[in-house]
């Protein structure tokens, strides 16, 4: 179903932002960074075309993008992380608490747009893409908040993009990490890494003992989530390898409880791994912490205690 504002338009906004970043770097002769942002901008500008071509059986565009991904790996190694100097004179004007409004506009506008989206229609089609309403709403909220921020501060648009570019360059290749990690997850899935791990775990446990099976399932969920950076990737693999055949069919575990608690066991793994970069590494860099693993360190006690409780809950609730 088509919509007036598709997620693709929001991706084009990202492409524009990345392109600006690339051009600013180009103007300063920071070639590697310019090329880095430029390649990513292409993924956002032509993403839909690439997917459409693949769906139609033409592999050229996707292969070109794949070569781009490899180039990104090499560029990330070469890209200088030298900080871009901020604009010289910080504005003196005291704006007061009104400064909060544009910042709060991002979550609040997202909320309002998500809530009213089902009732908004233009020319007989929904205004907001119903398949991904929150992401579209977040994109629109950023535009609204930017307008509000420009109004409140009286700054020029160019200033906003300079600041955005400064933050983006400070993040550097870390900004891209979530996307390449998710890509790696797809590669691991396609090459059968998950099946191998489930196979190895399955070979090493005494399958007649239901608690041993449960422990292996939980352990597998955590370890595989840590490797993939994503519990969603671990779940089908561990369920197909251990969950359904051994726990549900052989030992009569309740599927609803096993599914829900099994997934949450994986989430404990997500709190522990640098592979879940968008949650664990990106914030450390965003907050300018000296140690990239500081956020993970802060999460280890919560994750481990919760993991134990979760496994205990499973042992109590899963078998009836």
């Amino acid at each position, binding site marked *: 179903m088509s919509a007036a504002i598709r997620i693709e338009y929001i991706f084009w906004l990202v492409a524009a*932002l990345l392109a600006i970043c690339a051009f600013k770097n180009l103007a300063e002769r920071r070639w590697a960074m310019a090329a880095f942002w430029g390649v990513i901008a292409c993924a956002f500008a032509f993403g839909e075309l690439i997917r459409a071509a693949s769906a139609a059986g033409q592999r050229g565009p996707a292969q070109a993008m794949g070569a781009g991904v490899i180039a990104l790996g090499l560029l990330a190694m070469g890209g200088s992380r030298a900080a871009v100097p901020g604009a010289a004179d910080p504005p003196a004007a005291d704006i007061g608490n009104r400064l909060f409004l544009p910042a709060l506009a991002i979550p609040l506008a997202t909320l309002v747009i998500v809530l009213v989206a089902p009732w908004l229609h233009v020319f007989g089609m929904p205004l907001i893409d119903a398949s991904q309403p929150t992401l579209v709403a977040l994109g629109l909220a950023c535009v609204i908040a930017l307008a509000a921020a420009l109004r409140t501060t009286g700054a020029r648009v160019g200033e906003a993009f300079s600041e955005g570019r400064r933050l983006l360059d400070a993040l550097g290749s870390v900004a891209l990490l979530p996307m390449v990690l998710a890509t790696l997850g797809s590669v691991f899935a396609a090459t059968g890494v998950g099946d191998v791990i489930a196979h190895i775990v399955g070979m090493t446990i005494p399958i007649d003992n239901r608690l041993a099976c449960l422990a292996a399932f939980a352990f597998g969920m955590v370890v595989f989530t840590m490797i993939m950076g994503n519990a969603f990737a671990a779940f089908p693999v561990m369920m197909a390898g251990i969950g359904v055949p051994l726990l549900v069919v052989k030992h009569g575990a309740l599927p609803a409880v096993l599914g829900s608690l099994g997934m949450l066991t994986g989430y404990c793994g997500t709190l522990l791994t640098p592979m879940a970069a968008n949650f664990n590494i990106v914030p450390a860099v965003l907050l300018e912490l000296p140690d990239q693993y500081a956020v993970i360190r802060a999460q280890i006690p919560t994750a481990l205690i919760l993991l134990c409780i979760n496994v205990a809950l499973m042992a109590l609730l899963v078998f009836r």
Partner: protein
Amino acid sequence: MNYWPLIGVAVVIAGFALKRNAVLVVVAAGVTSALAAGMSIGDLLALLGNAFVSNRALLLFTLTLPVIGLLERYGLRERAEAWVAGFRSLSLARLLIAYLGGRQLLAMFGLIDLGGHAQTVRPLLAPMSEAAASRDCRLDDAERVRVLSLAAATDNVGRFFGEDVFLAFGAVLLIQGFYERNGIHLEPMQIALWALPTAICAFVIHALRIVFVARTLAARQREVAAARVDGAPS
């Protein structure tokens, strides 16, 4: 069974351990794993390209950066600190626990992207936490890292252990869909409800940890304040 693709996992672990550039490590791991699985170069490139493009949503947070950058240039962080400094009763523990509870509740209603590291933690929660933790004296570097990383961790815990209770969330639908394909029919409600006990435990455990960290920090703050009073000329 072909065990060779596991080399990709080894590349990731070795690369992270040796602290090479993470993007390079991950790309190298993907290429290694695919080649070890016997994939042709053409298939490999197409797989990489398609997977990369399919995961574009993960970079959407960059759209917040111009707004956040501009507001910070005009003093957003300082404002957030000043605002918290005005509330004597808003302690670090109260601030973070309230954020944790709010984030969990909103996530339970599917409002996951309301908060986030770029949207709320860097511009608002982090400076507020720092201000709430340093009422009597400045935090030293280690304490500062502890407070900021705890704020980021609080956002993660609240999000993860709230979203699973939401019916239409991907995880619940993924679980339901998986069982459906295996001939087991479940209602999403049955699955989502079983996430509640863990959600409550997550809140309690993390809230206790916040209190613990806040107490440790507050103890030093009081010491410094007391020393200042003792040493002050009368």
